């Protein structure tokens, strides 16, 4: 494969990662890292460096539309960023103490369970009413978003903000420790604990992951893991893919989105389990 061909292949990998990442709130690392290491035979450090850039590109590219169209709830995102960013710093410190193998197994099991729970969750209309949450009232977190699949604006109320904040701290710590999975835990935390519509959860996760990734990007840059000629085509592809994916979210059936999320996250969980066991 010549450098020109490689650049085009990396661009295509980016498009797929950005497209799926924007829809699912995951950032696209789950596509970029395996494609670069397993298919193209690259060094894992270069793949992770490219993946960090891809996550930021997905987040910023998709959030342009998600914020403008009120798909992402900015207030929820910014409030929860307190927990994810401090969690990421905690994870970076814990990384030198804890054994990653054990963590991979624990994380894989937690991830697999939450993937199943997200897939089996009922749509908003068929759920019991949310318990009142004075903190969410105080911070003004409740919102509304346009759902093209339902053909109307859907209003929603936020519950269990404190539990959500705690889970986000765990999500941030895990992503700081393992360098992955920031979106895979953020979406279930918002969907299962705080009771947000699945589209608002993935869009808000997308909005947030750029900040989490930016916090660790400096370290990768300093180490020389961000290779310009590998990261550039991936990042450009991701931006194109994310813009496309973001357009689709409002029109997609929530049930399908849940199923797609569960399949992808389950695959990520299996991959982590293999890493932890072998």
């Amino acid at each position, binding site marked *: *494969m*010549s*450098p*020109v061909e*490689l650049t085009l292949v990396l661009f295509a990998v980016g498009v797929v990662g950005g497209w799926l990442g924007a829809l699912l709130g995951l950032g696209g690392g789950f596509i970029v890292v395996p494609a670069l290491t397993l298919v193209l*035979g*690259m*060094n894992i*450090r270069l793949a992770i460096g490219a993946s960090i*850039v891809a996550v*930021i*590109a997905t*987040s*910023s590219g998709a*959030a*342009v539309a998600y*914020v*403008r169209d*009120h798909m992402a709830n*900015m*207030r929820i995102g*910014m*409030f929860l*960023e*307190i927990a994810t*960013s*401090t969690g*990421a*710093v905690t994870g970076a410190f814990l990384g030198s103490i804890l054994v990653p193998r054990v963590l991979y197994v624990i994380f894989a099991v937690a991830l697999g369970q939450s993937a199943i729970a997200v897939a089996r969750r009922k749509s908003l209309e068929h759920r019991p*009413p949310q318990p*009142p949450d004075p903190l969410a*009232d*105080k*911070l*003004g977190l*409740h*919102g509304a978003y346009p759902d093209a699949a339902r053909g109307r604006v859907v209003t929603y109320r936020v519950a269990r903000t404190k539990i959500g904040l705690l889970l986000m701290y765990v999500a941030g710590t895990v992503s700081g420790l393992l360098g992955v999975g920031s979106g895979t835990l953020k979406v279930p935390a918002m969907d299962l604990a705080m009771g947000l519509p699945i589209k608002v959860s993935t869009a808000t996760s997308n909005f947030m992951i*750029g*900040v989490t*990734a*930016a*916090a*660790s*990007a*400096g*370290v990768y*840059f*300093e*180490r*020389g893991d*961000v*290779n*310009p*000629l590998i*990261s*550039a*085509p991936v*990042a*450009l592809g991701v*931006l194109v893919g994310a813009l496309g994916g973001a357009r689709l979210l409002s029109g997609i059936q929530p049930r399908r989105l849940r199923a797609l999320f569960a399949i992808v996250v389950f695959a990520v969980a299996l991959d982590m389990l293999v890493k932890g066991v072998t």
Partner: protein
Amino acid sequence: MPGPSGSTDRTVERTNQRLTPVVSGVLRIGVLISSSVITAGVVLTFVASASYTSARRAVPQLRHGVLHPVGFHAPRTFAAVLSGVGHGDGPALVMLGLLLLIATPVLRVAVSVIGFAADHDTRFVLITLTVLVVLVGSFAVGT
């Protein structure tokens, strides 16, 4: 269903009306500028380095993490990136674009602090300021 207090309602309304287009705009500008610089850097790399462009195989070298034209090293510091850009170095220009991309979410948080302050939303000024401090602090610790 108990509704939120009237003052909170108005604050949220202000955020939605005023801050939303600003944050979306900051992200859009960040994405446009960084992707333009990255694209220019990639084109410059191929145009300027005949040996890289005409190389037949890139993949075997990748196993050792090497993909560069001969004599090229990825700049790791901000000063090295700027000096490379000054010399018309394609990969350095790409790095500048990637750094601008990384800076975009940070800028988004900074702009939000100002936006919430303009709306007199004290709680969210403190929230976004905390995030900004942790973010900038993590850069400082990492470097």
